[in-house]
């Protein structure tokens, strides 16, 4: 990774403090915002630490699933919502068959793989037909598959798909309820090994799993496949001349991303313990991408460290802003809208800067 930074325009003369600040302007700005919010709202540090640790643990897999498509030149993969939906299909299935505990979660993770692979493959095919417009296409693709998902769980379940389960279905017998209680797998991964450090509860198992994924991605990027992905990401045409099957490499990147997103959503859901059948997945892409960008990543370059830093800053802001809104103006909704504004705004600004720089 160090060799790469030298290729970046900002990487030259990176030793002076000013240029270092300039290069990391986005994370620094958000760190200042977070610090201001924490000070103004006078938040209990223990509450904040607990909140952030649990958010960090449950969101880490989802944000890491974005890294592979970025390195393969597909940009920010808004279609990870499709992976999230695959995970939800699996979790609905195991809840229906009443498979409990860690076994339930493991079955769900295994069961989501075939669906996620197929969906990732199809998404890769679609994005290969929309080169240069991958991001907008992946976003619309997410909306489209969301439509299909709703069709299945609102109308086909109970009619075409035979399913009888009073506790999960709407009173009419067609369609799933808005919320599915996931008590059989509630926090099974988090509880597996959780330590209490001065009042801060740390889900070690979940964090270790995320660490293992970081290591796996780090290793993947050094294999032949990873090198090919990076080559495709740098320049499609040169990669093709060098004998790399560009389309195939991009499809593999999409499949990996979709599978990781499915697992990420399962880890997220076991922590939350309730599935909002029709909304849980909708904001997954937006929030993961906004967090990654807050960490200083761009649509062309994203590292594991940027992902982790972004997760920390974005979720701190997420926790702090309603409380800060309450403390400063007395209206908590202002903080809530402010964080939505930040999520969308940071994506807009990052994309604009990306397009601006790649033109000049």
């Amino acid at each position: 990774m160090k060799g790469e930074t030298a290729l970046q325009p900002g990487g030259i003369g990176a030793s002076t403090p000013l240029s270092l600040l300039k290069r990391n302007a986005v994370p620094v700005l958000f760190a200042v915002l977070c610090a201001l919010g924490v000070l103004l709202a006078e938040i209990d540090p223990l509450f904040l630490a607990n909140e952030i640790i649990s958010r960090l643990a449950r969101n880490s897999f989802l944000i890491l699933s974005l890294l592979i498509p970025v390195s393969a030149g597909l940009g920010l993969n808004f279609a990870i919502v499709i992976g999230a939906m695959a995970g939800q299909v699996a979790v609905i299935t195991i809840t229906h068959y009443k498979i409990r505990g860690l076994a339930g979660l493991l079955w769900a993770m295994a069961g989501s793989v075939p669906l996620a692979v197929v969906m990732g493959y199809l998404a890769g095919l679609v994005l290969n037909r929309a080169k240069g417009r991958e991001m907008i296409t992946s976003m619309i693709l997410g909306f489209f598959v969301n439509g299909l998902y709703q069709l299945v769980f609102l109308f086909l379940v109970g009619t075409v798909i035979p399913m009888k389960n009073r506790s999960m279905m709407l009173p009419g017998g067609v369609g799933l309820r808005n919320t599915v209680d996931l008590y059989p797998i509630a926090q099974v991964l988090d509880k597996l090994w959780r330590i209490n450090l001065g009042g801060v509860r740390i889900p070690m198992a979940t964090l270790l799993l995320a660490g293992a994924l970081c290591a796996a991605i780090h290793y993947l990027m050094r294999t032949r496949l990873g090198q090919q992905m990076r080559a495709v990401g740098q320049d499609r045409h040169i990669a093709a001349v060098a004998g790399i099957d560009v389309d195939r490499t991009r499809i593999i990147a999409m499949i990996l991303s979709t599978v990781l997103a499915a697992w990420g959503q399962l880890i997220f859901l076991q922590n939350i313990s309730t599935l909002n059948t029709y909304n849980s997945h909708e904001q997954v892409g937006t929030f993961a991408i906004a967090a990654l960008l807050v960490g200083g990543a761009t649509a062309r370059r994203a590292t594991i460290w940027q992902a982790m830093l972004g997760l920390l800053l974005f979720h701190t802001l997420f926790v702090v802003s309603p409380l800060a809104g309450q403390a400063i103006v007395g209206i908590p909704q202002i903080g809530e809208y402010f964080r939505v504004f930040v999520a969308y705004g940071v994506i807009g600004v990052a994309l604009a800067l990306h397009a601006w720089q790649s033109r000049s």
Partner: protein
Amino acid sequence: MKQRLEKLVERFGIPRLIIMAFVLALFILGSLTGLSTAQLLSASLVRFGMNGVLVLAMVPTITCGVGLNFGLPVGVLCGLVGALISMQLELKGFVGFISAILFSLPLAAIFGWLYGWLLNRVRGQEMMVGTYVGFSSVAFMCIFWLLAPFDNPELIWAIGGQGLRYTLTLDNHFGKVLNEFLLLKIGDLEIPFGLVGAFLLLCLLSQLFLRTKVGLAMQAAGDNPRFARAAGIDVPRMRSLGAMLSTILGAVGIIIYAQSYGFLQLYMAPLMMAFPAVAAILIGGASLARATVGHVILGTFLFQTLLTIALPVTSHIIGGDISEVARLIVSNGMILYALTRAGGGR
């Protein structure tokens, strides 16, 4: 003969044929199940006039080469501010309606120009940047609605709340003024000549504008920017102008939409407004690079008719409201189709 037929199908586009067949099938199903075709048609016409101008707003940006305007909420928000000023001043009926449009025009012109300035700097990523400019301005305006200095008791929460209400009723202001203007009733069939006429008038004006010197320059800038520059056309200026016109049409469009709906929806309501408009013009036959007023009229009619009659017909048959899901699948499927066509029609 077969070849000619195939060519005709190709020109017309397979998705459009499917949607047309679907609309026709729904009409037949509807009349078979005993629903009044005249009522279905009347409702469709209202929805056609209600949404048309928002779809028309796509024409300037596609013509000038910016592409589909996913940043339509920028215009919508300007229109909402205009409508709120008119309501704050207690202007009623047509005066209220016209003044809402007049108040929103300068705002839409300024913000449209700024939006165009930004889009000129992010060439190649206009759609993605536009989407998020739209999203973030909607979120920003949510804060504005909370803090805005409106004090008309009809607009703000009566007790215990802060800022403007989520949904404002237009009954006492300019609700339905266009819908009820020149409304023709023949039996069950109601034709809102005022509403549809206003939409068609704006279509005609757009068509006339495209024939003027500026309009032709805009088309040239969109078709072939290099050639246009060689011919002495200021391409970035034309693109800014396209974004500005689109924003203005978005502002006018939401005011017409709101008067027809009878309510003004604030906060997160405008977030997804660009997508149905984009889908409608694509259903009409437009591509990322080419759009005509004809595409707008055909696309809006097909899409809105589909959505309007899908609800009563399907609820009659399967007993559930499938129209929201159908809207998601059809509109996003259509946008995907356009995005993945070789070169996007460019």
